[in-house]
Every structure is written in C-alpha cells, then in structure tokens.
C-alpha cells in the first residue's frame, strides 16, 4: 500500500467522526450543538437522561439513523463494487442480479397480497425484513445455481436483468389486485428511508455486514485477478467458480439486508465505487473494498441528512437525494468513457 493510500485512508476514517457529529447535531428538531455533544457524552458514560425529549431524539432516533446510514452506504457500495468487478462493467449496481427486485417483490407479496405469512404480521417492521430477505435469498439462490451452470458472465448478467423484469411484472399484477391502502403502503415502503431504523435492527445489519466485509476483503486477491477476465484469472490459479459464487453471495446478502430495513436505495452501489477509483487511482480490490465502504458510509450519511433537512420537517425519500448525487456522477462517467 502506497503512502498516498495510507494518508487517504486516514483522512477518510477520520472524516467519519465529523460526519457522525454533523449528522447527529443537525435535525428537523433544533437542538443546540453543545447540548447534543453533552447528551452524546452523557449517553456514552452512562448518565441517565432518559427522561428528556432531547436525549430520546439523539440516542433513540438520530444516532441509530446515522449509524444505519453508515452501514447501508458501506454495504451497498461494497455490493456495487464487487458486482462491477465480477461483470467487468462500470454501470452495474446491486440491482443487476435481480436480488433487489426479488426483495421488493417479496415485500410486495407481503403488503399487497398478504400472501406471505411472516412473524408479527404485515404491519411489523420485522415482517418486512423477513419478507425482503426471503425474496432476496430466493433470487440469489436461483442466480447462484445458474452461476454454477452458465459459463459466460454476460449471460449471467442478462439472467439477473431478466429476473428483475420478471419480478417487476409480477409486482404489476399484485398492484392491479391490491387495494388503495395496500398500494399506498407499498409505495411508501418502496421510496426508501432510514428513518425507522432501530437499535435492534442495527444489530442485525452489523451482524450481517461485518462478516460480509471480511469476506470481500479476503476475496481481494481473487477479485484482482478477475479484473482482466475469467480466463486470465484461471491462468493465475484462481478458482473462478468459488470467487463468482462468493461475490454473488456477499453482494446479495448485503443488498438484501439493507433493502429489508431501509427499502431500495438508489445509486450508492453504482456511484461510490467510481468515486473510490477516482480518489485512489487504483483498481486493486484490496484497497477499493475498504475505500468504497468508508466513502459509501460518508456519502449516504450526508444524503440522508439532506433528505431530512432539505424541506424539514418534511422528509424526502433517501433515493431522491442519492439519485441527485449519483445521477451526475453516472453521466460524467458515461461521457468520460465515450471521450
């Protein structure tokens, strides 16, 4: 690792602290920053402030939300990066394997048709999580089976896109049959938000995220060999099938868990890996995986802050702000590629 990379990593890691503080201090309900810091401190040292509204807002709403945005951003960015490497395609994101669509379809089945029986019933957030995870995993297993059978990576990409369309078609049928209330609920969920995330959900997100992060780091060497194509990787002694399955597994699980708790979040998985590449000027996956994770965390936290502050207290769907941020990057990349 070059010294430039070390400096960049240090800066990015440190930037997580001001990002956390800024996103915690600013919110629709004005709380003086000094008071926020005091509350944060007292919460950390275990002083009981549970009787104040401010304490609850900071420790039970804002802090979990910021942490959730960190995890969501990091997870989606890693997922996007892994898929971009696997498919050797820069405009690939977590939706490409149809995993996100599978997730959305399962939630649709739950909300629109009540067809899925999950613990807690349709109104429970855990039910949403369960449905989303079931949908994502179901699609993921189909893709995994096909990944073992299909040789061409392009075919796999097409299969993923086709599954996505299939899920959308089934969703349209469900929408046609749904009642107004069900449709409204589904639309609201599909807009995506980190506003409802609780501490217990963060625990689940972290439990899934950390092993996936470690796995992606372990795959770094194999992924680097993959950059020049499967044949090249094979010649370097990389077990292509294992890497392929590992990448699909990790990216799908990461996408599933985030979609489950926050709904679909657009563009992060697509745009952040490119920022990491631009910043680090490297294609080394061992650097890009942690770099994308940190940049993704920071960017998502600010996008989330923007979504809750732009028209505060009216809250915008997080995909609105991530798209506002991601779309120009995508256009820039496309134009640069053409140039």
């Amino acid at each position, binding site marked *: 690792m070059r010294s430039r990379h070390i400096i960049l990593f240090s800066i990015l890691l440190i930037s997580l602290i001001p990002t956390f503080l800024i996103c915690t201090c600013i*919110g*629709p*309900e004005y709380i003086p920053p000094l008071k926020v810091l005091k509350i944060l401190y007292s919460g950390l040292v275990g002083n009981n402030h549970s009787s104040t*509204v401010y304490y*609850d*807002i900071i420790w*039970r*709403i*804002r802090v979990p939300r910021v942490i959730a945005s960190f995890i969501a951003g990091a997870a989606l960015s890693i997922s996007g990066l892994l898929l971009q490497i696997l498919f050797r395609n820069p405009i690939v994101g977590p939706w490409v394997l149809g995993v996100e669509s599978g997730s959305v379809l399962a939630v649709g089945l739950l*909300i629109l048709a*009540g067809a899925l*029986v999950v613990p*807690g*019933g*349709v*109104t*429970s*957030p855990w039910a*949403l999580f369960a449905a989303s995870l079931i949908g994502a995993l179901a699609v993921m297993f189909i893709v995994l089976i096909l990944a073992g059978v299909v040789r061409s990576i392009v075919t796999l990409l097409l299969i993923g896109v086709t599954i996505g369309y299939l899920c959308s078609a089934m969703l349209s049928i469900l*929408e*046609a*049959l*749904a*009642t*107004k*209330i069900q*449709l*409204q*609920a589904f639309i*609201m*969920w599909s*807009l995506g*938000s980190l*506003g*409802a*995330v*609780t501490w217990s959900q963060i625990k689940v997100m972290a439990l899934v995220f950390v092993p996936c992060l470690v796995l992606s780091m372990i795959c770094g060497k194999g992924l680097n060999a993959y950059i020049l194509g499967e044949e090249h990787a094979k010649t370097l002694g990389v077990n292509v099938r294992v890497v392929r399955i590992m990448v699909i597994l990790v990216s799908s699980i990461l996408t599933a868990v985030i979609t489950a708790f926050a709904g679909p979040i657009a563009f992060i998985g697509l745009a952040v890996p490119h920022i990491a590449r631009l910043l680090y000027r490297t294609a080394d996956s061992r650097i890009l995986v942690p770099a994308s994770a940190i940049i993704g965390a920071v960017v998502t936290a600010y996008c989330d802050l923007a979504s*809750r502050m732009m*028209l*505060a*207290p*009216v*809250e915008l769907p997080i995909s609105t702000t991530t798209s506002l941020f991601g779309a120009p990057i995508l256009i820039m990349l496309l134009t640069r590629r053409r140039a």
Partner: protein
Amino acid sequence: MVRKSVIAGVIIAVIVIIIAGVASYLYLSHRKTTTTIRKTTRPVTHVTARPPTCKVSWPTVSVEYATLFKIINTGKYYLIVKDAANHTFILVPRGCPAPRNVSGTVVYVPIRRGVYFSTTEVALLYRIAQALHKMSLLRTVVGVTWKGVWWIPYMQELLNNGTTKYIGSSWHPDIEEILALNPDLVIMYTGFSTMVQIMNKLEKAGLKVFVDNEWLEKSYIARFEWIKAIGALYGPQGLRAAEEVFNNAVKTVEEVYDMCKGLQKVRYAWFVMYWGKFYVPGAESYVAKALAKMGGEYLFQSATLRRTGSATVSREYVDAQVAKAQLIVISGFPPYTTSLNPYVKALPDMVKAPALKTFRVFEYHPSYWQLGYAYTGKVILQIASLLHPEKFRGVYRTFFIPLYFTDKTMSIGGVEIIWRGYYEIIRDLYGDKILIIPWGLTRQLKYFNPKVFPALATLEKDLKTVNAIVQTPVHRVVVYYTCTKYVDDLGFSSSIIRVIRGTVNVGEIESLHPDVVILDSSHASKSIVETLLSHKIPVIVLDCSNIKSGFIISLLYNYPDLGYMLFLK
C-alpha cells in the same frame, strides 16, 4: 431435403393463415359488439324532432362551498351540471325530450345503472336513499371497484347476490365488464394521471363519465356538498333530498363551531405511521382548518407543512411534537393500526404526552373511509367531542375509536381490564369475561387473514374464551338504578331503555334486546347473571358504590377520556 422444407413451409403458412383468420374474425366480432354498445350509449346532443317541452321542475339549488362542480339552474325541465373535469351534463328527467341547442352530454335521470368508482360516492347515494326512504336506489349501483368490507348498509348483500358487480380496482378496471354492464353513467374520480387515462379510455369506449373529485375539495363541508351532484343524477327528487341532507349537515357543523367558541385550546397531533414512516395532514388541510375552528391547536405547524395535502415527516419531529399532545388522533384503522405499542416504540417521547395518560388517543373506525364524508355533521360533532369531551358528552362516537396499549392490564373498581389495543376484555366482579369492541369490527375476521394480521388472530382467540361481547358505542342499555348516575354523567341518559329497581326479570330484559345490562354487585345474584349470559345478553357486574366503576361504563360508549376525567382523576 428441399422437398421436406417446402412441405414444412406450406404447413407453417397454412397454420399462420388459419391463426390470422381466427384472430381477424375475433377482432372484428369484438369490434362489432363494441360498436353496438357505443351506438346505444353514445352521448346524445341536439337530438329531438319535437319542440322540447316537459312539466318537470327542478329545485333551485346553488353550490356554495364546493369549487369543483357547478349546478346551473336553467329554470326549465332540465338541469345542467358541470363535473370536476369540466364536462357538461344535461340532466333530463326520463320521459322528457333532450333539449335543442344546448351542448353537453345528455343523461336521462334518475339514472338506473351507475358504475361507481369510489365507496364514498356510494355513501352519498346511501344518504339520499335514506332521506327518500327508498333503499332500492342502491340497486342502481351496478358496478363498484371495491370488494372488501362494505360499511354502507345493504351494499354487501347487493354484491353477494350479484345485483352489484365488482369491476376490478379503480386503477385497473375491467372496461369490457363495465361495457357489459351497459351503465347510464360511470361516476369516477380523477386527480392523478392514471385515473385521467382511465377516464379517457372509458370515454373512448363510448361511456358517459361523470368526474366526482370531492376528495380534492378544501373543506369537510365542500366535500360533502358533492351530495348535490349525486342527488341531481337521481332527478329533482334526488336533488331535493340531497339539499335537505346537506343543509342539515351545514347547520350541525355551524352549531358545533359556535359551541366551540371560547373553549380552552387543545393541543393535538393528527398523524399515522405506516411502515415506519409518518404521515401528517398539512397545517392548511381541511382537517387542520376544521379543528382550528373547534379549538384545536395543531402541533405540526412548520413552514414546510403549510399546505393543504399531507406530507411524510421526520420521526424526530413527530416525536418532539407528540410529547406535548393533549389529544392524539391516529388516522389509521384496524386491522392495520391495532395498538399503541408500535407507536410508542417508534416515538420514545410519546409516553410523555398528556394524551396517553388521560386516555385521549383515538383512531378511525374503518367505516370512516366509506361513510365519514357522507355524515359530515356527525364527523364534525365527533371530532368536537374528542377535543372537548366534557362539553360534547352524549355524542355517539362511531367514526373514532379509542386506541390503547396491547396486553397491559389494569384493575379499576375491582374489575380487571385487559387492553388489547383497539378493544378490551374486562373481568367483572363475578369473574365473567366481557369483550368490549367497537361496532362491526368482528366482521373483519371474514375479510382479513388472521395469520397476516396477528391482532385478528388474538381477537379470534378471545372471542372463543369470553362470556359475552359488547359492541360500542352501546345504544340500548338496561341498568341497575344505583349505576344510572354514571351513564347520566357521561351524557348518555337517552341510551337507558330500562332502569332496574328490585328483582331482575330475565324475560322482560330479553324482550328489550339491550346491547348491555349493567348490574350492581350488591343487588345482582350470580344465578341471574348466568341466566342472562345463557340467553346471550351481555351483562357486566360492577360495584356501583365505587366511583371508579364509572370508568368501566365509559368504555361502553367509547369515552375513556371523559371516564378518566370524571371518575379516575
């Protein structure tokens, strides 16, 4: 090889020709049918050979509050109505000729076959039918877009017996089915692009479409004024009835507003949580405006919320505001909203709200979305009773129901209350379990899957274990004389159909068909209670010398807030 290919080619060509032939035949025959239907239903204008004369007269009706439709009194036998899409309709009483030189779509009234896209429109028709004492009017509803629970009387029956057909959801209606119904008029709403597209499709199919956008009006009363438009579709008689119903509602609303003048302001929060997101009506919405006139002080007043529609707002904003609320109205309804628990979990400071301590959290009864706007006077009156329960005691709350925690228990006056969110079970002084639930909600078990809605599964289980069920608010009460004071204090003296003094006559009580019998433990024998329960008469035994028993009685009228104020505070 070549020969085989030629043979295969010929076979394929023959198959293609056959398929094309069959498809063309089907297409043309379908087109023919459609054209025939079009011919019979196409709007007729300027059509008549005779001089247009008819002795029918329409009442002179003006539209005062609604802005999206117009009634133009012509002083002649026909009436002109402009709908929300600015279509002009010439309403001609049946038997009269269509007028000449008047442009617009002619509709012969009263309409006999109407397709209704919204249950609220059917509810308006129900009010007209009620006023005319002519429930058969509902039989003119030949198509609807709702197949769930109907809270409008008779409609479920009409759907079950096939008089009224389900024509698909309002955003995916089956146009062929609508055409097959051959309606005189399709009454639908628009307001967003999908519905406008559907309206265009229906019109292209040759149907007459009347656009009723009452939901876009700016006040409760303006919404309700659309009853006049629906009334006009049922002729002069229908319009007269609609006007009478509307005027009565306006009178009630104005009286309520007057009664609220000078009363202490009540800080309230009105919102709903769906899947972790919070929806609030804008500070200039008709809900907020109406409540402001009744002494309500809306807590969601930020600058970006100064709008007429609703908005998704941040959790922390709702949390901070709701902590100050004296009254909370959750605009959800069972089986989607069945408990306070998820709210308190999502909003940690909600427990600090005075509303929670004083039992002042309410939600909609599911019937509200169908019947509420057709009973605007009642809705306003009931909202006033939520804001000022002491002032409006005696008002039956049918559209708003109390919302409690789930699985919490309380002991009051020796009676154990097990809160179940939107209903409760009480174990009275004789140990009998009585389930107290808002009216009609047990019906939901037929339409919703208890496996998907756990609250319904609990209800299903509870129904099997309780000794009696009481549906609230109770309207017919038999009460032991020592307990009457509590009913009087709550303002529901008129609900008492019999006061018992001395011995209880089971036969007599049975003949009265009471909703509930309230007995005093000091005078009621266990055997009498058992006999009444065996006759399926709900009985509650209380210690009426204990003032706290009044709170139990308040639950029977959906007034835990007033019950708390009067008997527990």
